């Protein structure tokens, strides 16, 4: 009866594991440099490649030792996975990016769960490698986080793709149910640490946390999706990190990289929450958020004096204007209006108008959503202004054009204490001389709040689908 779980698995010579560890260290350094380079648009592409090289290095170092039997499986699995990943990545439309990020994220979580399953089976058959307390515990945690990541990401995918309704679903006892599922899974993880002979404990954790992932994400409204996507991203890192602990010896590559991703996701989540002036708990359990900007519930307010404008009138207004700021929102993404916006951008620039884009951090369905769409159509990134850069500019802008955004420009957030979005930092479009709101209808935004901007004295409504409106406007501008 062997009692020593040696640090190095006997089959691997010491020098090989040493070389592997060095390779993992280099890979981790490359990941860190890669992420660092991602912080500037100029070096970002190189940064992504740097991280990719790190991954390649880690994979090669791991593959250095294999037995002939597994090699066929490994190669075929890697080819299949790479092919699917490459096809998805190359064929995806930029407007569908949030879904794809959610999908990849979910697969990462699922992979971690599968690793735990296979490692558990292997170790429980092999008496020379007993599962220690910490390994049992992290196996449970890895399955817990991995399953939440997987099913949560799938629900997010469904919502973003429009397969599942975007509005938040909540029911009585949801919070208690979630807490129970988490509590039981967590307790079961500790129990595996004590006694790992009962295999179905892992299955119980997998089942409960899979349900938990669904109930957590289905409660999130469309407009809160950026927070959820960032959070799920963080979870996938944590799952990889926990998986690093279950291996023997603990795998430093998984632990370091997982921790980096986990930390980055948390930071991004908190940036998103700050941009909405809400706590994470409020986003997760507060449940505001119908699917805005899709123009489904068109509640007209005949009694209010809404002034509207058509493409020809608007073209005339834009004639000879010095500065225009466009504020895009999810409506632009839904209508795929970014190409028409590019045409407008070029026509106006040619006429000597300065055009800027004001991007709210939570505009769209994932962090940075609008930036990607505008980059797709070659809008130079120095024309994209964030909240702090943009707000002083409105004072000197003749025209602010809101394109499929709603709550992020609602002035009620500044002064109406009873408003659900009170305190949320907004883009102060109402400070511009004239505000053009391009929108399908007067429907309220995600918080169900009516937008007083629409009836403000300096606002003109430009009704219609974002793409069609923009093309009409371009046509009118070139004809005049």
């Amino acid at each position: 009866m062997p009692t020593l779980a040696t640090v190095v698995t006997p089959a691997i010579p010491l020098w090989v594991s040493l070389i592997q560890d060095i390779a993992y260290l280099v890979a981790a350094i490359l990941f860190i440099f890669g992420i660092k380079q991602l912080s500037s648009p100029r070096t970002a592409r190189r940064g992504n490649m740097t991280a990719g090289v790190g991954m390649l290095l880690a994979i090669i170092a791991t593959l250095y030792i294999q037995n002939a039997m597994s090699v066929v499986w490994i190669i075929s699995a890697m080819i299949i996975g790479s092919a699917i990943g490459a096809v998805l990545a190359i064929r995806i439309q930029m407007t569908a990016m949030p879904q794809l990020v959610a999908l990849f994220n979910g697969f990462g979580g699922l992979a971690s769960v599968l690793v735990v399953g296979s490692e558990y089976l292997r170790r429980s058959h092999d008496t020379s490698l007993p599962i220690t307390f910490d390994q049992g515990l992290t196996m449970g945690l890895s399955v817990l986080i991995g399953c939440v990541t997987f099913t949560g990401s799938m629900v997010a995918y469904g919502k973003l793709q429009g397969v599942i309704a975007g509005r938040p679903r909540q029911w009585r006892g949801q919070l208690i149910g979630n807490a129970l599922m988490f509590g039981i899974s967590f307790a079961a993880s500790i129990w595996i640490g004590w006694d790992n002979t009962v295999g179905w404990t892992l299955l119980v954790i997998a089942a409960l946390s899979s349900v938990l992932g669904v109930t957590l994400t289905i409660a999130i409204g469309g407009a809160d999706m950026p927070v959820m996507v960032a959070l799920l991203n963080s979870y996938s890192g944590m799952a990889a990190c926990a998986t690093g602990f279950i291996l023997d010896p603990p795998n430093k590559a998984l632990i370091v990289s997982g921790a980096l991703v986990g930390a980055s996701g948390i930071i991004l989540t908190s940036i998103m929450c700050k941009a909405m002036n809400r706590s994470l708990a409020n986003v997760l359990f507060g449940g505001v958020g119908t699917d805005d900007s899709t123009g489904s519930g068109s509640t007209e307010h005949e009694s209010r004096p809404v002034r509207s404008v058509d493409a020809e009138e608007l073209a005339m207004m834009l004639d000879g204007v010095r500065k225009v700021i466009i504020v895009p929102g999810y409506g632009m993404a839904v209508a795929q209006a970014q190409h028409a916006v590019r045409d407008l951008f070029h026509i106006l620039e040619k006429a000597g108008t300065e055009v800027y884009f004001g991007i709210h951090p939570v505009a769209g369905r994932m962090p940075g959503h609008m930036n990607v769409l505008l980059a797709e159509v070659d809008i130079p990134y120095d024309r994209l202004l964030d909240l702090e850069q943009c707000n002083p500019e409105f004072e000197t802008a003749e025209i602010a054009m809101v394109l499929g955004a709603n709550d992020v420009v609602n002035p009620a957030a500044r002064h109406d204490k009873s408003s659900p979005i009170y305190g949320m930092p907004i883009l102060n479009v109402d400070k511009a001389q004239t505000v053009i709101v391009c929108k399908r209808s007067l429907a309220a935004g995600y918080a169900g709040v009516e937008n007083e901007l629409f009836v403000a004295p300096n606002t003109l409504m430009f009704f219609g689908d974002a793409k069609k409106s923009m093309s009409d406007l371009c046509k009118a501008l070139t004809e005049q």
Partner: protein
Amino acid sequence: MIAGLNAISMVLAQDSVQSSRAPLLIAVVFILVLASLYGFEIITKVPATLHTPLMSGSNAISGITIIGALICIIHMEPGSPFITILGFLAIVFAMINVVGGFLVTDRMLQMFKRK
């Protein structure tokens, strides 16, 4: 709380008798904590414009779990079909995550241009 910590440290101590795992574990936890702190540090500097590529790029990095999948399948004893299938699927999904993640990030970043 202290009792709980005591219990955990006792369990770890028991383990360490068997496998001298405690020092190793502590070293690894050090790595974990430092990596997390550094992660917080480098991400705070990323501008909002790059949030999506950052997310999909770091998502690709979380596909590092591929290493775990490879290790599992490499160390597997012959003749265990169920483990093989799980390991096989783990590699497939992790590879989708890695290859897809890096490629799509590159596609996005190609588009970010200054005038």
